[in-house]
C-alpha cells in the first residue's frame, strides 16, 4: 500500500510499504478514506521530536471504513465508517477509567523511552515517534487500529468525511483548550495561534459562552478566518502590534481571563527573544521555544488560567515563574483526551452548532503528501489545513 513515510528532517516520501495486519485480538484494520496533516506533524517534519526512524508512517488524523476486525472487537463490523481518536487507549487501566485517555498506561509499548524523558509515560499515539509507541500512522491507504473496541466512533450515514474527520484530534483539542479555561459569562479569552487548533479553540470558547475572544497570529488570512468563521471578536497581528500592550489596552489593563497557547514548541516572535531561543535550540541547550507560553503567562489577568494545548517536547528556558506564582495563575494542559469529547462534539455537529470543515483550505491526493507538508509548514498559498485522500 501507499503510505507517507518520514525520511528525515523536511524529507517526507510516499512509499510502497507492506499492508498492516492484525497484531492484537482487539485490533481493526481501517481503509482510510480521508486523513489530514496536523500542525503537530510539522514538529516531526521539522525534526523537533526525538526518537523518529526512517520509514516511520505518519498521520494521526484519519477516518475510514473497517475492513477487518480482530476476534475480540465486538462492537465494529466490516463496512462500518469510523473516525479514530489520535491517542490509543485500552479503556481498562486506571487512567482510562478516570477518562484521561491520552495517559493510557497500556497502549505504549515504548513507555520506557517516554518515562526516561518525561518521568512518567503518556499513551501511545498513531504515527508520532517511537517514544509514543512506534505505531504506524494513518496517512496511508490502510492503518491498523489497536483497541478498536474502545477508540473508533461510528459515523452517521450521509455525513461527509470533512465534517467529522477533525473529531480525531483538532476539534476536541481546541474544545478541551477552551474547556480548561473554565469560561464564565462575560469572560475574555485570548488565543495565541490561529492554525486549525486555534480556530477550534476560538469556536469552542464561543460555544462555551465567552463574551470576547481575541485571536493572535501574524497571517492575515488566518486572522480573517478566526474573525469571519470561528467567531473571534478581536484580532492582533503580533508583527504589527505589541501583544501585551494590545491585550492590556483591550481589557482596560486587567488582561484576559484566560489565555490559550495553541502554538507550542515552534513559536515565532519578532525581536531578540526569538533569536535567543533559536540560538539555544540550535546548541541543544533547550528543546522548545516557549515564546508564546511566556507571553500568555505575562498577559493573563491576576488569578486567571493559562490553557496549553500547543505541543511541547522537552525542556524550556526562562519560564516566568515569578509572574506565574505571585499572581495566582493556574495552568492546565495535556494531550487531548479525545475519547471523552467525540460523542458530545458529534452531537454539536449534527445539530448544526458547528461545521468543522471551515478550516480546510487544501484538498490533495495522498501521493502529494510531501508537497502538502512543505506548503503547510511554509504557510504557502494561505494554507491552514490540508486534507489528503488516498
Amino acid at each position, binding site marked *: 500500500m501507499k503510505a507517507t513515510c518520514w525520511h528525515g528532517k523536511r524529507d517526507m516520501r510516499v512509499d510502497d510499504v*507492506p499492508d498492516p495486519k492484525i*497484531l*492484537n485480538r482487539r485490533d481493526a484494520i481501517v481503509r482510510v478514506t480521508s486523513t489530514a496533516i496536523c500542525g503537530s506533524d510539522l514538529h516531526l517534519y521539522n525534526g523537533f521530536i526525538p526518537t523518529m526512524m526512517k520509514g516511520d508512517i505518519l498521520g494521526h488524523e484519519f477516518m475510514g471504513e473497517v475492513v477487518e476486525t480482530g476476534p475480540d472487537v465486538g462492537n465494529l463490523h466490516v463496512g462500518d465508517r469510523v473516525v479514530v481518536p489520535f491517542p490509543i487507549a485500552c479503556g481498562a487501566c486506571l487512567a482510562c477509567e478516570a477518562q484521561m485517555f491520552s495517559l493510557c498506561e497500556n497502549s505504549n509499548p*515504548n513507555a*520506557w523511552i517516554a518515562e526516561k524523558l518525561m518521568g512518567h509515560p503518556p499513551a501511545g499515539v498513531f504515527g508520532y515517534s*517511537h517514544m509514543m509507541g512506534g505505531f504506524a500512522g494513518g496517512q496511508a491507504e490502510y492503518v491498523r487500529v489497536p483497541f478498536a473496541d474502545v477508540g473508533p466512533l461510528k459515523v452517521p450515514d450521509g455525513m461527509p468525511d470533512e465534517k467529522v474527520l477533525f473529531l480525531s484530534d483538532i476539534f476536541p483539542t481546541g474544545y478541551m483548550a477552551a474547556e480548561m479555561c473554565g469560561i464564565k459569562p462575560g469572560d475574555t479569552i485570548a488565543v495565541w495561534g490561529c492554525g486549525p487548533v486555534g480556530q477550534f479553540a476560538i469556536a469552542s470558547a464561543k460555544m462555551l459562552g465567552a463574551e470576547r475572544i481575541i485571536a493572535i497570529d501574524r497571517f492575515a488570512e488566518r486572522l480573517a478566518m478566526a474573525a469571519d468563521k470561528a467567531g473571534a471578536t478581536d484580532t492582533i497581528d503580533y508583527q504589527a502590534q505589541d501583544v501585551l500592550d494590545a491585550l492590556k489596552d483591550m481589557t482596560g489593563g486587567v488582561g484576559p481571563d484566560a489565555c490559550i497557547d495553541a502554538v507550542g514548541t515552534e513559536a515565532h516572535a519578532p525581536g531578540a527573544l526569538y533569536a535567543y531561543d533559536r540560538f539555544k535550540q540550535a546548541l541543544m541547550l533547550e528543546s522548545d521555544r516557549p515564546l508564546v507560553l511566556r507571553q500568555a503567562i505575562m498577559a493573563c489577568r491576576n488569578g486567571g488560567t493559562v490553557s496549553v494545548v500547543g505541543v511541547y517536547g522537552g525542556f524550556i528556558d526562562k519560564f516566568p515563574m515569578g509572574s506565574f506564582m505571585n499572581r495566582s495563575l493556574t495552568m492546565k494542559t495535556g494531550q487531548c483526551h479525545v475519547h471523552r469529547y467525540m460523542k458530545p462534539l458529534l452531537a454539536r455537529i449534527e445539530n448544526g452548532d458547528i461545521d468543522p470543515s471551515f478550516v480546510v483550505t487544501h484538498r490533495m491526493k495522498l501521493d502529494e503528501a510531501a508537497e502538502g507538508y512543505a506548503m503547510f509548514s511554509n504557510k504557502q498559498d494561505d494554507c491552514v489545513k490540508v486534507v489528503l485522500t488516498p
Partner: protein
Amino acid sequence: MHTLATRATARTQSPLRRTFEASTPTVARGANRPDRDVTTVGIDPTRLARALGWFSLSLGIAEVLAPRFVARLAGVRHVHPGLVRLCGMREIASGMMIFGQGKKPRAAMWSRVAGDAMDIGTLAAVASAGAPGTRKGTLAFAAANVLGVTALDVYCAQAFGHDRTESAPGRSIRMARSVVVNRSPEELYQFWHDFTNFPRFMLHLESVQRTGDRTSHWIARGPAGTRVEWDSEITVDTPNELIAWRSQEGADVDNSGIVAFEPRPGGRGTIVRVEIEYTPLGGAAGSLVAKLFNASPEQQVYDDLHRMKQVLETGEVTRSDAVPKGLGPVRQHAAQGESR
C-alpha cells in the same frame, strides 16, 4: 517501607526463614526510580561519551603541541604555555579514561566535568584580571563553549548514573521493580501463583510446567536457539500477599524471586513488587545467561512487569508496528507493517 524479604521472613516459620535469608534479595534502595542503565533512542549517552572522549583527546593534543595557538583561540594571550600544556595533559587523561572505562565511563565523565569547572575558573580569572591582550568577545565565546560542553558532560555523567544491577561473572544479578495493576491482590495472587502464566509476559521464558504442588520446570531461551533449564520450588506462599520461589539443586542457573501484592488505598489497584536474583556460575551457562540478560537486567524486569500489567488489564501484550512482539527495548524497526 518493609522490604519484601523482611515482610516474607516476618510471615514465615523458622525453617523457611533461614533458607530465605540466605537466598533472597532485599528491595534495593529507590527501587521505584526509573532505570538509568538503558540508553534511549534519542541521545545515546555511550555514543555521546565517545564523542566527548575524542574531543578530549584532540583538544588535549592540541593544547600540548600548540599551547599558544589554543590560548589565542580562547581569547587569552599572555598566559603561561605551561599552564595550557597542563590542561592539555588533563584532557588527554580524561579522554583515555573514557575509552578505558567501557560502555559507561561514569567516573571519566565526572572527571571531565571537574576539568570544565577548572577551565571556566581560568577563563573567569583571566577576564577579571583584564590582562593585556585579552579579547573579551572571544573570551565570552570560549566561556559559552565550555559551558555548553559542561552541560553535555553533566548530562552524560548523570545518564550513566549508579549501577544498581551487577553483572560481573560469578556474582549475582539482582533486580527490583514495581508496577500498579488495576486488579485486586486476590486476582494478582491467583495469576502469579500459576507459574505457567509467566511465559505470557516474561518473553525470555519458553515454558514453565508444573511438576508438583510447589515445584515447576522452567525452560528459558538462550542465544542461537540454545536453552537454559531448571527446576524451581515455591519457598514462601502467603495467599494474596506474597510468593517466593527459588531454583533447586542442579539448576543451569541459580535463581530466586519474590513477588508481593499491596492494595492501594481507595480501591486504586494493587502495587506489585518484584525482586529477581540470578547467579551466573561461569562457564557455558554463565556466559549464556550474561547474554540472555544483556546489559540491563533491570530493564527486562521493567518490561516483564509492564507486559504483565497489559495481560491482566487488556488481555494480552500490546504490540505496535515498530515493536511487533511487544518487546520494548530490543532493536526497533520503522513504524510500518512487516512484509508477509
